[in-house]
Structures are given as C-alpha cells and as structure tokens.
C-alpha cells in the first residue's frame, strides 16, 4: 500500500490506485508498440512542407495541413524508386507506417510511397512553372533555332531499351540513314531529370569532328506514360537545359496529347518519337528524284536556250539581202561620177589659170615701194613723240615724291618718344619702391634674428650674475681643472678679470686672451 500512498494523497482504493508504474523506456516501448501496431499501414493526405535531402540519401520532409504537421522520412532505397519526388507545396497522398522515435519523444511516418493527390495537384504545379519560365521569355518563338535540313550527326537522349529508340532508328533508316549517337538516360523516376540534363549539356560540350563528334541536332524522346511517369520532363532543370542548348533540339515526350515543360522550350515539338525522326531528316529518295529532276530541267533549259538562239539566227540569216543587190546602185553611181571626173578637173585648171593671170598683172615694184614709204612715215611720227613723253613721266614722279615728303613730320616721332620716356620713368619709380620695400623687409627680419641671437647667446646669461671661467684657450668648468691652472680669467657681463687660483687677487694686469666659449655650450644655458 506504500505505492498507493505515494501516488495519491487521498489513499482511497479505486482503479487509479492500482496504476502500474512505468519506467520511461517501458512507457516509450509501450507507446511504440501501440503506435506501430495501430498504424502499420496508413495513407495520409497533406501538403509537402520543408524537404531536406542530406548526403545520406534519405529524404526528410513534413506533411502538413492547416492545423497539424507530421514528420516523415523516406529511406534512400525507396526515394530512388519513387515516380514523383516530393516537392514543397505539392499536395500528396503518402502511404506508409507510423513509428516512434523514443530518444526524442517523437513519432514520424516512414513513407513507402508518395503520390500527388490527383493529377490536379501536379498540373497546378506545372502551371506555376510554365508561368515562371514564360515570364523569363524561355518560350519566346524568337528563341527557337531552325532545325537543320540535313543533320550529319543526330544525338538522341532516351532510354537505350524500349520501343522509342527503335522507332526513331527505323524511321531514320527509312528516310535517310545518318550517324546517330544515343545518350542513355533513365526516362522516369528520380534519376530521370538529372540524367537528361547531363545528356543535353554533355552533347553540347562535345567538339565538332572530335573523337566523340558533336551532333547537329538533339532529339529528346520518351514514350507515353502517366503524368507521374513523364514528370521528369516537367522539371525546371530539364527545361532550362533544353533552352540553353546551343544545338537545335526536338522534343518528343509521351503521346500527342501530353505536353511537358520541355516541349515549350524545345526548338520543335514532335508529337511522337517517330515524328521527331521525320522532322529530323528529309527522305533521301525524294531528294535523289528532285536532283534528277533539276538535272533534267537544267539540260532542257540549256538546250532550249541554244535552240532558240539557233532558230533566231537562221531567221535573221534568211532576212539578209543578196550581196550583189547591196553594191549594184553604188557601182552605177561610181561609173557615172567616174566619167565626169576628168572633165571637171580640166575645167577647174582652166579657171585657176585665168585667176593667176589677173593677180600677176597687179603685182608691180611701184606698189611695193609705196607701201614702204607709208610705214617709214609712221615710224618717224612715233619717234618724235618718244622724248617728250619721257620728260613728262619724270616730272609726274618728282611731284608725287614731293607730296609724300611734305607729309613727313618730326613732331610725330618726338611725341611718341616723350610718351615712352614717361612710361620708363614710372616703371623705374615702381622698381625703386619695390626694391626698398623688399630690402626693408629683409632688414627687419635680420634685426629680429639678431635680437633673437642676442637673447639666446651666453652673454645675456652673464647679465644675470653668471660668469665664465677660462684658462688659456679653454673654458674651465670643474674645480679640479681650475686648481691646476696657473692663471684664470673670469668673464663678467661688463668685462674680464684675471685671477690666480689659490693666490687670491688679480693675476697680472693684462688678462690672458680670452677664448670665446662655444655659443652652443649647454651648461651655460
């Protein structure tokens, strides 16, 4: 009954009185058994809160609704298999069991499977992403690169097994066999998005013509599946890698009705993998036929061009008149004029001879002589006018010179000289004033410095009652030194006095030549 007494002060008997006493571990174990027994398999609907993914590979997350929070853990092995990776804000249904964590008085859910709570939840998240990427301009049609007409090398990012790669290769072979590099990736599950991103980036990183040649075109393909299966292609990282690809990219994910995020950023969205192969290459046989056709047109056009010209030449040749008819008229006219030529020559000669006879008749020496006399008279007239003209020109020049000379006056020069002399005097006066001011300043400073020197000198100290003791050329500052001297000289402010140490009285009439102490001597100052 001790136990009961301890448990309650009333000490009355009742069901409470018999309550078993647990240790902490016992009660924790009991709770664990109850919780794990009762909630060995539960489905919980809630919104994913904070998600953390430490390096261990386990995923820790919170499930929450508007009032409560439930801690959850997804062990590493399970996390890798999940078709949908938990993301913050996603409405999910988690399946698993509850367990307790006695060390911290906590319980949590061990999640075995996690699915979006209906397609609506995923679609809502996808819509959010679409809006975000569209706002960044990643869906802009101007960003889309043209798909090459005939790529040399095609890079295919898809699962190496399955119908998709087979369909693509078959269709390529049918249309135009090409070099194909397959980059194997997981097309669903947690590894899907990172592997697809790495593949797109990896193809872009290859060097054209290298040992692993860079493709001219990338096809990212996957067959149909549920929205959860296709979810990797809705990841933002995949869309961004596709948008950043320098190589034109065709997306072909799922069936025609499935549109994933990568389809919005790819340069061409093919409804199916087969359609992607069709967009990737033209049909070789069609092209061969086309080339033949062009060849035929080329030959026909050339034949036609020469044929038409030949025809035209023949037509023109036919229209040419006969050569004889071209010259007949001319020949007739030649005959006619040829006949008239000698007669015309004879007539002309006759006329000229008559004209010569007339002209010769007028030519006589008297006529020549008359011409000479006339010219001599003209020369005589001109030479008579020559001398007066010279005299007149000289007179004119002299008159102009006189005019100028009168205008030349000494007074103008004198006035100018006087003005300049005035300027010189003023400048000289200013120079003298400035000089005086300058030397005055220097003198004042010199006097001030001299006063300062006097003040600082030891002679001023003498005026205050100190004396300098000298012996010969040295200054004596110690008694011991003074005692050994024969004669000392004491300098006062008003003069010097010679003394004999120990002897008393003045030493001789003529003081020994004093030696000026060094002005900088510290002991005096």
């Amino acid at each position, binding site marked *: 009954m001790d136990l009961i007494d301890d448990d309650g002060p009333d000490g009355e008997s009742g069901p409470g009185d018999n309550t078993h006493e647990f240790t902490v571990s016992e009660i924790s174990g009991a709770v664990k058994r109850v919780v794990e027994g009762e909630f060995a398999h539960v489905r919980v609907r809630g919104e994913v809160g904070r998600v953390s993914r430490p390096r261990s590979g386990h995923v820790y997350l919170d499930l929450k609704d508007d009032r409560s929070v439930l801690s959850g853990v997804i062990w590493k092995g399970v996390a890798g298999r999940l078709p949908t990776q938990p993301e913050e804000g996603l409405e999910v249904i988690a399946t698993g069991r509850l367990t307790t964590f006695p060390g911290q008085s906590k319980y949590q859910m061990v999640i075995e499977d996690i699915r979006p709570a209906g397609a609506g939840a995923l679609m809502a998240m996808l819509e959010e992403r679409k809006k975000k990427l569209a706002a960044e301009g990643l869906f802009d049609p101007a960003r889309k690169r043209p798909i090459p007409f005939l790529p040399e090398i095609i890079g295919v990012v898809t699962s*190496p*097994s399955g119908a998709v790669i087979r369909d693509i290769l078959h269709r390529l072979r049918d249309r135009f066999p090409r070099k194909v590099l397959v980059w194997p990736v997981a097309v669903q599950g947690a590894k899907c998005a990172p592997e697809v991103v790495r593949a797109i980036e990896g193809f872009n990183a290859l060097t054209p013509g290298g040992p692993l040649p860079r493709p001219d075109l990338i096809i990212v393909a996957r067959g149909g599946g549920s929205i959860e299966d296709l979810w990797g292609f809705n990841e933002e990282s995949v869309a961004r890698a596709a948008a950043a690809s320098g190589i034109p990219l065709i997306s072909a994910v799922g069936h025609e009705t499935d549109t994933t995020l990568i389809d919005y950023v790819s340069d061409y969205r093919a409804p199916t993998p087969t359609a992607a192969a069709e967009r990737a290459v033209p049909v070789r046989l069609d*092209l061969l036929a086309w080339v033949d056709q*062009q060849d035929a047109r*080329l030959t026909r*056009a050339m034949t036609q061009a020469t044929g*038409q010209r030949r025809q035209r030449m023949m037509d023109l040749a036919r229209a040419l008149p006969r050569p004889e008819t071209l010259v007949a008229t001319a020949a007739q006219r030649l005959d006619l004029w040829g006949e008239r030529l000698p007669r015309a020559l004879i007539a002309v000669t006759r006329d000229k001879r008559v004209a010569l006879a007339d002209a010769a008749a007028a030519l006589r020496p008297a006529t020549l002589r008359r011409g000479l006399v006339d010219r001599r008279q003209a020369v005589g007239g001109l030479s008579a006018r020559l001398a007066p003209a010279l005299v007149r020109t000289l007179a004119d020049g002299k008159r102009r010179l006189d005019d100028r000379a009168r205008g030349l006056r000494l007074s103008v020069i004198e006035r100018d000289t006087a003005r300049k002399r005035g300027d010189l005097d003023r400048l000289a006066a200013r120079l003298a004033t400035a000089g005086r001011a300058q030397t005055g300043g220097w003198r004042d400073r010199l006097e001030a410095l001299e006063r300062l020197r006097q003040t600082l000198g030891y002679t001023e100290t003498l005026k205050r009652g100190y004396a300098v003791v000298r012996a010969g050329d040295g200054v004596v500052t110690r008694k011991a030194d003074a005692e050994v001297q024969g004669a000392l000289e004491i300098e006062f402010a008003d003069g010097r006095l010679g003394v004999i140490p120990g002897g008393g009285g003045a030493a001789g009439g003529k003081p020994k030549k004093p030696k000026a102490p060094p002005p900088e001597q510290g002991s005096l100052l």
Partner: protein
Amino acid sequence: MSDKPVEEMSFEEAMKALEDVVGRLESGDVPLEDSIKLYERGAALKKRCETKLKEAEEKVAAITLDESGAPKGTQPFDTP
C-alpha cells in the same frame, strides 16, 4: 550567286543554289556566255547534291559513361 565553293556547301546550300541556277536558266533571258557558265555551275551543284545524298550511311553508337556520368567513349548500339 554565292561565293562559297561548291565543294564546301552543305546539301541544303547546294540545293538552294541549284534551284536558283535552274530558275535563271529557264527564264531564258541570260546571255549565251553566262548561260554556259550557269549550266556548268548547275552540273557541279548537282554533283555536290548527289555526293551528299550518297553519304547516307547509318552508324548508330551509344555513348558510354564513366562513374561520374561523363562521356568516355562509344559502343556499337544494337537496335533492341
């Protein structure tokens, strides 16, 4: 007419150039001298197109990856 040598043209470039040559020759208003040059160019372009079409060789390889996921080489790819 492009300055690029015919031997360096891609199929598509050669195709466009050939179309252009045929079109001009068919228009019939090219002087005879030029039309002969055009015809020769057309023949070269046609040959280039055929060469590119003959390069239809199928070769499929799968990229092999190292532990870090970086490409290290290729291996023949057998259609499953």
